[in-house]
């Protein structure tokens, strides 16, 4: 019995690992807005400011489209300070189409359940490509001070 086990051990290929096994992905980041993506609130709502003060960025917990990946102008559900808030994506780090700006941060603007923005001013430039979209996002665009 012992002999057979020994022979099996000898037949098994020895897998040598140099260093610890890689526990994270080494491929390049896609900068996609998926679940638990950290965002930056760019309006002057009280809850957004409070979240920025304690240094806890809001995280995406749902994307309201079929792909479950957020793109420019999509509606998302985020957690801010333990509360669920709806928000619109108004700027992405991801590579964009020609003439559409790519921002250095992933920006969102918080809205309430009726689609009205929580703040009354947006501090960063907004992509001009959003202006061709209809619906509730026009309420946000009316707050914007600058378009790129």
């Amino acid at each position, binding site marked *: 019995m012992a002999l057979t086990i020994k022979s099996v051990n000898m037949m098994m290929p020895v897998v040598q690992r140099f260093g610890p096994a890689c526990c994270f992905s080494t491929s390049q980041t896609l900068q996609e807005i998926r679940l638990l993506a950290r965002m930056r609130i760019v309006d002057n709502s009280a809850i957004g400011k409070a979240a920025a003060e304690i240094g806890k960025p809001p995280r995406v917990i749902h994307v309201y489209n079929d792909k479950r990946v957020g793109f420019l102008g999509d509606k998302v559900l985020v957690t801010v300070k333990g509360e669920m808030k709806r928000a619109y994506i108004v*700027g992405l780090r991801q*590579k*964009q*189409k*020609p*003439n*559409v*700006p*790519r*921002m*250095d*941060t992933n*920006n969102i603007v918080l809205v309430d359940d009726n689609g009205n923005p929580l703040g009354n001013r947006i*501090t*960063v*430039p907004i992509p*001009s490509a959003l*202006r*061709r979209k209809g619906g509730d996002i026009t309420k946000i665009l009316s707050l914007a*001070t*600058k*378009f*790129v």
Partner: protein
Amino acid sequence: MSLRLLVCIPSRFGCLSCQHDSTCSCDAAKKTHHVINYQRTQTEILQALRPKSNFLLSNVVDKHRLSPLQQGTEAVAVETETTAPRDYRFVMPEFLPNADYRYRDRVLEKLERQDMLRRRAVIDIPEFYVGSIMAVCVSDPHAPGKRNRFVGICIDRSGQGLRAHFVLRNVVDGLGVEVMYKMYNPTVLSVEVLKLEKRLDDQLYYLRNCPLEYSTFDFNMDPVILPRGSQVPVNPIKVKLNPKPWEYRWERFNLKGIEPISLTPKMIKGIEKSAEPWRQNDLMMMYRSQVHEEEETEIMAEVYKEKHRIDSQKKTSRAAQRKNK
């Protein structure tokens, strides 16, 4: 009936005679005598009415060529050799084809070059390099003036043919913004260079990981005019990188436009691991990574010639406009 039969009989006899005689001598005899044969069969008539082949015999053509009427009208090809200046490949690099032979298509390239020159006849795409400060106007149906202007530093320029593009970067309201423009996109209304200069590197994507002051440019900046005939100045500025995390491992790129980084042992190990010192000795790789010089001179001469024609046309049209005013 009987008459028709009688008429038909001689032809049938002729056919019968041919059967045992393979070389048809009877037909030849008829032709020499120019006897009109009224008793042609259906197939013979069809053959006579068949459309003739659509070409001229060369001896017939030559006869016309040599006729005295044609003298002095020969088209003599006058080849005027034009060669583009050597730096043209840096001024308009998008005219050069892809160096990778797998993506070559000579017909497509030629057609694209024509389209590009046609577009250049409509809008003025000036000479610019990575590091130049540029202003681009694009048509935007939702903007108040139906146009959208963006000013920024060119951090990348690449793409061949109609796919050529460049990327501008600027900081607006404390947020870094980058816009990629296709050079031959019909929605691009104007491209202007506010400050013509080069930087030490081919791509300036490291500005994303630098303090914002290095990529901040005024939207109402006045264009800086260089003296005529002067060289394109190189900006020797060395930017300071922010502390990590970075977008890429910049220490591995052998960048000249950044201040020296304090390397950790791990970084040094990574540089050694990712270094490819054999590349400079790989002649085949070098040969394949660039367009051959003969081909380049040929393409650039064509482009140069065509561009001069367009420029002269523009000049004359401008002069005509002035006169009309």
